[in-house]
């Protein structure tokens, strides 16, 4: 195994570790872009990320140069990094001198940046595109297939990390709420069984009876169910 593969595997391992422990999103992404610039045939790397409120922003980059180019694309509203996010597809520019037709507003800024080529990978999980991982190069040419595939894997891992961390941060995952909601499903099944036995009904009829009672009394189904199995309520 080559040294480069070692580095790649170490990066995968470090990123993967972030999935297991609590981590700071920005720290992990900074690590990712720095590793990308080291491992891949890239001079610099930057990540565009949609904030939870929906705005695209340059969240991390390895150098001011790649930061600027990301920013410029945001101001212009067009360019490979932005297009990768909006289309959900890889945008590979082998020569930044020849983008005038495709992205006229971006073209001049691209030339001034001094980068020669750019490989933009969408950060996506199924239908959710949350940003792009962008590799900037000093030489003209496409990123080789192996590096492209490996970079995509890193982007995928980072995407999962961010999405899941956001999921955890949202108070939706208040454990109590989850617990209560899942408990109520169990209690509703228990109540069906209880009524099925006490009223000699099949499960569907038992459920209908419970639901009708809840509606008539404008009570929550789960509360009625709970009262039935605790003996507080006899239907």
């Amino acid at each position, binding site marked *: 195994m080559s040294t480069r593969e070692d580095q790649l595997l170490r990066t995968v391992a470090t990123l993967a570790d972030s999935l297991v422990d609590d981590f700071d999103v920005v720290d992990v992404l900074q690590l990712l872009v720095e590793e990308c610039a080291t491992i891949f045939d890239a001079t610099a790397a930057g990540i565009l990320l949609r904030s939870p409120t929906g705005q695209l922003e340059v969240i991390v980059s390895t150098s001011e140069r790649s930061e600027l180019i990301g920013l410029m694309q945001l101001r212009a509203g067009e360019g490979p990094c932005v297009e990768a996010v909006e289309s959900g597809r890889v945008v590979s520019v082998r020569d930044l001198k020849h983008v005038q037709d495709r992205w006229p507003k971006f073209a001049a800024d691209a030339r001034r940046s001094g980068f020669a080529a750019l490989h933009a990978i969408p950060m996506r999980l199924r239908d959710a595109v949350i940003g792009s991982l962008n590799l900037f190069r000093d030489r003209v040419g496409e990123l080789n297939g192996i590096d492209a595939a490996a970079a995509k894997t890193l982007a995928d891992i980072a*995407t999962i990390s961010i999405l899941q961390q956001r999921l955890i941060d949202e108070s939706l995952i208040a454990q109590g709420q989850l617990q209560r909601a899942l408990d109520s499903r169990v209690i509703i099944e228990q109540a069906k069984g209880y*009524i*099925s036995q006490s009223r000699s009904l099949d499960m569907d009829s038992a*459920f209908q009876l419970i639901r009708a009672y809840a509606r008539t009394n404008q009570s929550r189904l789960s509360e009625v169910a709970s009262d039935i199995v605790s003996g507080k309520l006899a239907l």
Partner: protein
Amino acid sequence: MDAALPGDDRHAFSDALSRLAAAGPGDDLCAAFVGAAGVSGAAISTLGRPLGSQTVCASNSLGARIDEIQIDLGEGPCWEALRTRLPVLESDIQREGSGLRWPGAGEALRALDIGGLFAFPLFVGDLSVGSVDLYTHEPGSLSQGAVEDVTVLAAVASRHILRRALDLLEDTEEGMDDGPYSRREVHQASGMVAAQLAIAPDDAMLVLRGRAFSSGRSVGAIAADVVARRLTFTR
């Protein structure tokens, strides 16, 4: 004699990670673990609070049975792994002295045609999700690398399962889903027995488990008999 299993294939790990990342709500998660660890089969179950004890997927009926035994008895390597937040690795379940910490489950598991049994906890921060159980036909151990890989995959799977549970919370005024491993009938049976014996449903569950244990049948089978009115409990 312990032989190291082929758990060091980086492509298999990368592939498994991608598969878990791309998994949709109804997709099987077990195949990724089987592929990455090079084992004979796997089963994933949610255990205890808050998600409730239920098998989520199994790569084959043997895997499903391994988890059913432990859910029915409320003990076993999967429970220990979840409680300690550490993998429980038994290279030879048939060996004299294996499984002393869970005698009931140990005996039932030994009756199955399995050699190695490896349980990994599924959790997200403080929130317990369940476990993933891997087994091999022949005795053997997982390499340290494989243990690390499965730990990472388990973290991804934990978040996936949690997310799926949260997505199902849309409407809490419903009972449980009826998948291939659903414990819905078990809860209905608990309700019926609660009415039959005028006891709380949790106590009724103990009655069902006691009958299952003494008759050498699964709790699911006893519950089916209760719901079909082939079996009634009287004071």
